[in-house]
C-alpha cells in the first residue's frame, strides 16, 4: 500500500512540473510586460527597458525557451523570480499563501462535511418534502455563479448590520489591523465567516447531490438489512454500515471539487478584498506579470494534485478492497 501511494506521489510531482511549465509558456508567450514601461512619460530608452526586463527575466526579445530555462532553474532552487516591477515573487507569495490556504482549507472541509451530511440525510428521507427541498436548493445554488452569490451575501450582510446597528458580521477585508491578541483572533474568525460561506455553499450543494446518489445505491443493499437483522437500530445501521460504504466513491470527487474551489476563491477573494492568491492572479494578469501568474498556477497545481493525492489516501483508508492491490 505504501508503495502504491509513493508511486502516486511521484506521478503527481511530474504532473505539477508539466502543468507549471505549460502555464509559464502560455503566460510568457501571450503577456507583454514591456507595455508597462513603454507608455511612460517621460519615455524610457529602449536599452534601459531591455536591461530592466532582462534583469527580471521578462524580455520578449530573449527566446522563450531560454527564459523558460532561467525560470525553471530558479524554481528548482525555490526562487520564483521577480514581479513585473522587480519585487520578489517569493515574498509576495509568502504573504498571500496562508491567506488563501486558510480560506480554502476551511471551505473544503466544511463543504465536504456538511455536503456529505446533507446528502446522506436527504437520501434517508428520499421523496419526502425535506429531500425535495434540499434537492431544489442544491440545484439553485449550483446554478448561481460564485461572484453573484458572494455579492448577494455581502449585500445581505450589509443590510443586516445596518438593521442591527453595529457590525455583527464583517463583510470586507481580512482582519482589523488595529486589534491585537485575542480580539484580533476573534476578529479574523469573524472576517472568515462570509467568504467561507460563499465558497462552501457550492461545494455543499455539489457533494450533497453525489452523496445522496451513492447513499441511495447502498441503502437497498443486503448488508444494511443484515446489519438490522442482527439487532442494530436503523440509525446505527445507516450510519455505521451504509454511510461508511457510501463515502468511498464520494472521496474520489475530492480532487475534482478542489479545482472548482480555486476558481471560486479567485472571485471570493476579490469581492471580500482578501489579499490572497486568487486576487493576486487577477491582478497579475492585468499587469502582464508573467512570473507571478506562473507562481500562482504552480501553487494551484500543487493544491489540486495534493487534493488528488489526499483522495487516494482517503479511498485507501476507507476501502479495504483497494488496499490489497
Amino acid at each position, binding site marked *: 500500500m505504501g508503495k502504491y501511494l509513493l508511486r502516486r506521489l511521484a506521478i503527481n510531482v511530474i504532473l505539477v512540473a508539466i502543468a507549471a511549465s505549460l502555464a509559464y509558456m502560455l503566460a510568457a508567450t501571450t503577456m507583454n510586460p514591456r507595455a508597462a514601461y513603454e507608455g511612460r512619460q517621460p519615455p524610457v530608452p529602449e536599452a534601459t527597458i531591455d536591461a530592466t526586463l532582462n534583469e527580471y527575466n521578462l524580455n520578449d526579445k530573449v527566446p522563450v525557451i531560454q527564459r523558460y530555462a532561467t525560470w525553471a532553474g530558479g524554481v528548482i532552487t525555490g526562487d520564483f523570480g521577480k514581479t513585473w516591477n522587480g519585487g520578489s515573487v517569493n515574498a509576495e507569495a509568502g504573504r498571500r499563501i496562508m491567506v488563501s490556504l486558510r480560506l480554502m482549507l476551511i471551505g473544503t472541509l466544511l463543504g465536504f462535511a456538511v455536503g456529505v451530511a446533507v446528502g446522506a440525510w436527504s437520501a434517508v428521507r428520499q421523496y419526502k418534502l425535506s429531500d425535495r427541498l434540499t434537492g431544489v436548493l442544491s440545484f439553485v445554488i449550483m446554478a448561481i455563479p460564485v461572484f453573484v452569490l458572494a455579492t448577494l451575501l455581502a449585500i445581505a450582510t450589509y443590510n443586516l448590520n445596518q438593521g442591527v446597528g453595529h457590525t455583527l458580521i464583517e463583510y470586507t477585508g481580512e482582519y482589523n489591523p488595529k486589534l491585537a491578541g485575542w480580539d484580533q483572533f476573534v476578529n479574523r474568525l469573524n472576517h472568515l465567516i462570509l467568504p467561507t460561506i460563499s465558497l462552501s455553499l457550492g461545494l455543499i450543494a455539489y457533494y450533497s447531490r453525489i452523496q445522496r446518489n451513492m447513499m441511495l445505491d447502498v441503502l437497498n*443493499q*443486503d*448488508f444494511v*438489512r*443484515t*446489519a*438490522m*437483522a*442482527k*439487532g*442494530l*437500530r*436503523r440509525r446505527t445501521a445507516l450510519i455505521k*454500515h451504509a454511510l*461508511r*460504504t457510501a463515502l*468511498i466513491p464520494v472521496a474520489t470527487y475530492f480532487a475534482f471539487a478542489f479545482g472548482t474551489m480555486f476558481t471560486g476563491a479567485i472571485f471570493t477573494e476579490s469581492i471580500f478584498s482578501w489579499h490572497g492568491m486568487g486576487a493576486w492572479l487577477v491582478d497579475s494578469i492585468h499587469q502582464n506579470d508573467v512570473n507571478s501568474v506562473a507562481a500562482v498556477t504552480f501553487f494551484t497545481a500543487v493544491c489540486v494534485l495534493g487534493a488528488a493525492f489526499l483522495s487516494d489516501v482517503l479511498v485507501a483508508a*476507507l*476501502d*479495504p*478492497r483497494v488496499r*490489497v492491490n
Partner: protein
Amino acid sequence: MSILEVSDLTVTFPGGIQAVRGVSYGVERGEVLGIVGESGSGKSVTSLAVMGLLPNNAQVSGSVKLHGRELLGMDEEELIKIRGKSISMIFQDPLSAFTPVFTIGDQIAEAVRVHQKVAKDKAAKRAVELLDLVGIPNPNLRAKAFPHEFSGGMRQRAMIAMAIANDPDLLICDEPTTALDVTIQAQVLEVLKTAQQETGAGIVMITHDLGVIAGMADRVLVMYAGKPVEQGPVDDIYYRPRMPYTMGLLASIPRIDGEEGPLVPIEGNPPSPAALPPGCPFAPRCPMKVDMCDDEEPSLTPFAGGRHVACIRAHEIEHKGLTGADVFPVPVIPPSDVVRVPRTERATVLELDDMIRHYPLMKGAVLKRRVGTVYAVDGITLDIAEGETLALVGESGCGKTTTLQQIMQLQPPQGGRVVVLGKDSAKLDRAGRQALRRDLQIVFQDPMAALDPRMPVGDIIAEPLRAHGKKDVRAKVEELLQLVGLAPEHAERYPQQFSGGQRQRIGIARALALEPRLLVLDEPVSALDVSIQAGVINLLEELKNRLGLSYLFVAHDLAVVRHLADRVAVMYLGRIAEIGTVENVYDHPAHPYTQALLSAIPLPDPELERTRKRILLEGDLPSPADPPSGCRFRTRCPKFAVLSEAERRRCVDEEPSVARLANAVDHGAACHYAEEIEVITASDDQEEK
C-alpha cells in the same frame, strides 16, 4: 409450545399489490419448517415481515407472535432486542449480505456486542470460536479477512456463524444455498444442521429447491401466489400430495435417480400479484379445474393427519390416490431418427482435441507484466456425434464457459484443435468462419439479459436471418415462433411482456433461425422456476429429435443433465475428470470427484435423503492460477485421503489422463485408482402407488 406463531399474515405493497395473502404457520423448538414456492410466491416477503425488515411502504397485518409476544407493531426499541437475539436470519447472497468495508470477525463480534455486554476483545474471541464452529480453517487469521477475501461457501458459513452468535430460538434461512455449487451446498447444509444441534433452535427454511427441503424439513408449507396451498409433514407432502400444484411441482422436477423420458410440465405461468384470477389462483394452470374453482378461492382447510390443503377436490385426489403423473398430461416426444444408427457410424459434429486456453495474469497499471497464468482450460478432449447431446458439467470456475467461448469464437486455440462439423477452426478464413456460424448457434443462460429490450420479438428472431442475407423473413419468423410453442402474433411484442420461460423460448427460436446443426446451450434452464423449466427441457428434447440437432449442453444441475444428455463430461479445474454415457457415469461413477458431485445433490425424496450417506468434499476449488501438481483433485479427494503413502506419490507426481474403463464401451475416468461405485440408489417409484 410453539416458538413462533404466525397467523393470517398479509403484506400489501403500494399499488394494491398483495404479496402475501393470509399465511399462518407455527414453528416448534428444534423443528425445521420448509417453505417452498416459485419466485414471486411471497415466501421471502413473509419472512422479512416476521423480522420487521420490510420497507416502510409495506402494509403488514395479521399477527406474528414470538413466545406469545406480538411482534407486529412493536416499536423499534423493543424489536432490536429480539432481532439477532431471539430470531436470526441467514440471507441468500452472502457476498452482498456482508458490509464490504469491515472484517468478517468485526461483523460477527458486532452481532455479539449488540446483545451481550462483553468487552471488545471478548467479543472478538467469541467471533473466532464461532468461525471455528462453522468449520472455517485458521479462524484466528480468517477473522481478520474482509468479505471479498472469502469464497462463497465460506461467506455463507460466516453468515451462519453470525446468525447463531446469540443462541437464537429461531433461525430463518432465506434460500441459504441457492447461490452455491452443489458440493459447497452439501457442506453448508451440514453446517446448518450442526448449528441447529448447537442451539436447539427452530428453523424456517425458505427455498425453491425441493431436494434441499426433503433432507432438512420436518414439515413443509407450499406457497403459491402469496398464499399457502398445502401444509403438512414432509413425508405426506412428498409422497401423498393432495393439491394439484404440489403434485405438479413434484412431478416436474428432473431427478438424478429418475428414468429418462419427458418431464411433466405445469402449463402457463404463475399469476402476477397485481392481477390475480378470480377464484383459485392456480385454476388457470390446473388440469383438474372444474367450474366451481373460479367461484371462490378455496381456503386452507384441515385434512387428515395434521395436514392442510387448499383445494376443493382434495378428497377426491385422496380417494382415487392420484399422483402428478396421473393428473398432468405427459407430453409425447417423437423419437429421433438419427440415433437409430450406431454412434460410431454417425458423423462427428464437434471435436475438441487437447484444447488449451490459458489467460495471462497481469499486474501493474502502465507497465504491465505477467505474474502468472490462469489455466482455465488445460487440455480437454471430447467429441459429439450427430444427433447427440453432450453435457459439460462441473462447479463454477472449472472452465465450462471458457470452453464454450473458445468453440464459439471459431478462432485457432492456443493449443490443440477445435473441429466444428469437420472444419478445423485454425484453418478457417473470414468467409469460412462466417459460413460456419450458420451451423453453430448458442442459447444463453439468462433469458432476461440475452434479448434486446427495445427490439420486438420478431426482429430479434429475424436478426440472424438478415445478418446472413435473407430478405423475406416474415414467414420464417412465424414458423419459428410456432416451433418453440409461441404464437405468430407474439412477433409484435417486446421481450419484457414475456415470462422467463417464454423468453428462453424466444432465445431458442433465434438460435434455430439459421437451421444450425450444432446448438450450444449455456445453462439454458438454470434461471427458470421448476415448473417452467420442465417445459423448456421437453422443448429442447423435442427439437433435437425433430430437427436432428446435436447439443453441447453446459450445466451445473446434474439432474437436468441426466434428463437431456446422452453423454456427459465432468470437468474439474480445466480438465476432464470423467466422460461417458449418462447411464455409465451416473450409475457407476468411477472418479472420486464425480462420486462426490453426485452424492452432494439433494434428492426430492425425504426417505432416501434421510438414509443417504454423503461424500463430503473438504474446502473450496483451488485457484486455477495455481493448480495442485499431479492430479488436480488430490487436495480435496476423499480417496487420496485413504491411500497409502506409496500410492499417494503417484497422485502427486503424475497427472492422470482420461483412461477408458475396462468393462464399458463409452466410459473413461482420469484417476489412477478409478473404481466404480454406486452413489445414487435407483428408485423405481417416485410416489406411492
